[in-house]
């Protein structure tokens, strides 16, 4: 039975992980994802699961690797500096085609940066985040409800495609409280015939490795991995549109920036400006088709980001630079107000530069 409660985004995500059947959490403390660890430290023992505070983010992601080798759903969560450390493990998970669930509650950088929200890890997340050719499925919730629903989805996607699913969110979505409806459906069961469960002296041994010393074999591995990625791109892209039927000015934003942008679009439309919003829910795969279609009637795109301009490159690629794209951004932990975004919309509506 579903129940509706008031929860912080990070807690909703943590509870959804439990609902998804995840019983193995490994993590290292960092703000602003603290509530995830705190919640699961209490909750995992209640459901017979494992909560383990690792010695570092590096150790935590490799513990996830180990638990995933055993065929179990496993997760780790962190924030920007910790995700940099996890990038080694992300690469090995990808090279070994193992499912994993990873959360980045982003904070401002670079370096130690600050603890206020940011979206400056977009490149890192959508390009894989470690060495070698690989991708993660990147999910960008814009509400506490989506922190829960995209977590459920993320575990399924990871298991379906044998790859990492990452929640890319920020301190605001992570720490704000909203109503959330938690489903209590049975988690989807996936066969994992490749898992390291011991041969029982009855079958051929299983080997999970990312090492392929023969270049032709390694090339084939990469090619088949990218064929799988192409299937993800075809089947799993998620996007929300708002006011796009007749939009001349199209805002593109995800996460907290999308919420601000939606308010600005509503205000603009109230004053007669034909603005609209495209909100990627998956950042990888990026909803390139929705953008390309929009470019047919949109005059000007605005990328609203809490970064110096990262997603804007994917927008330009998606529309093949057929229309101008401008950046509306705040960084360092600052969030643009709806008024700032509205001002930008009004300027471009008048044909002015922003």
């Amino acid at each position, binding site marked *: 039975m579903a129940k509706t409660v008031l929860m912080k985004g990070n807690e909703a995500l943590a509870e959804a992980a439990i609902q998804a059947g995840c019983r193995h959490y490994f993590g290292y403390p960092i703000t602003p994802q603290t509530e995830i660890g705190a919640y699961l430290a209490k909750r995992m023992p209640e459901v017979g699961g494992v909560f383990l505070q690792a010695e570092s983010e590096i150790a935590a992601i490799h513990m996830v690797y*180990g*638990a995933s*080798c055993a065929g179990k759903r496993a997760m780790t969560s962190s924030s920007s500096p910790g995700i940099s450390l996890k990038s*080694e493990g992300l690469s090995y998970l990808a090279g070994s085609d193992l499912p994993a669930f990873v959360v980045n509650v982003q904070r401002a950088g670079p370096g130690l940066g600050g603890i206020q929200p940011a979206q400056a890890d977009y490149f890192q997340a959508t390009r894989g985040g470690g060495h070698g050719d690989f991708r993660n499925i990147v999910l960008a919730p814009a509400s506490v409800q989506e922190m829960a629903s995209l977590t459920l989805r993320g575990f399924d996607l990871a298991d379906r495609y044998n790859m990492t699913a990452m929640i890319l969110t920020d301190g605001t979505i992570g720490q704000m409280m909203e109503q959330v409806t938690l489903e209590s459906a049975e988690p989807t069961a996936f066969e994992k015939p490749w898992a*390291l469960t011991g041969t029982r002296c009855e079958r051929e041994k299983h080997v999970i490795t990312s090492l392929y010393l023969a270049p032709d074999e390694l090339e084939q591995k990469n090619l088949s991995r990218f064929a799988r990625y192409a299937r993800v791109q075809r089947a799993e892209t998620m996007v929300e549109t708002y006011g796009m039927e007749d939009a001349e000015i199209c805002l593109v934003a995800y996460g907290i920036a999308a919420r601000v942008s939606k308010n600005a679009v509503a205000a603009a439309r109230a004053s007669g400006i034909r603005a609209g919003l495209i909100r990627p829910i998956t950042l990888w795969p990026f909803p390139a088709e929705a953008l390309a279609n929009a470019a047919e009637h949109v005059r000007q795109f605005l990328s609203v980001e809490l970064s110096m301009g990262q997603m804007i490159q994917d927008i330009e690629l998606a529309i093949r630079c057929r229309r101008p794209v401008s950046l509306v951004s705040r960084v360092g932990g600052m969030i643009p107000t709806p008024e700032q975004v509205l001002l930008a919309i009004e300027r471009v509506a008048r044909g002015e530069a922003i």
Partner: protein
Amino acid sequence: MIVATRPHALTTAPTHYCPGCTHGIIHRLVAEAIDALGIEGRTIGIAPVGCSVLAYNYFNLDMTVAAHGRAPAVATGLKRANPESIVFAYQGDGDLASIGMAEAVHAAARNENITVIFVNNAIYGMTGGQMAPTSLPGQVTQTSPAGRDELLCGFPVKVCEMLAQLDGPEYIARVAANSVKNVLSAKKAIEKAFRNQVEGRGFSLVEVLSSCPTNWGMTPGDALGWMDSTMIPYYPLGVYKDRSAKEAD
């Protein structure tokens, strides 16, 4: 008369190790322990990054390969996810005592119920003979061409002595693979390290002093002799911690 047979837990694949390298002997001792305890069907091995990265070709076991130094973390994940399985990490000295020191120390401190076989050959074998954290004072390597100078490069890391200081681990011992006598006690120690896990006792690490004739620039025979003359005096053999022996006192 059959003098020796291949342990069942070993495959028939010929190893890629250099002539005179004792990695092969250590593999055999691990396989013999697994056979002796009858745990082949539920044992999972973790190969390191180093000369033994291909160890999965030589064991008849489910295996994975960890990133450089991370085997104890991978072992932790595997064991926590499936406590029924017997999990061991096989690691070199660069892997365990340099890049993976934190993972090793904390797995020991948590008393993870895993077995670690730590192969100390005082050098980075796979990458061509660079100085390891365990290279001896004065030892000539590719990256200490004038001999390891402690003022410049610091002192070797004595892993057993260090880990024995922790309250966590169950069993810490150092053995050597360079003579019949030493190999026999190595066999006992390795078997104990696996039995401890079967009995749920916790973290067991056996440091096995090993040879690298190729990168030491010695004949296989001289390498075994150098272990006796130089390595063992610096890294004394013995049991550094054994909680079950203490309980028996």
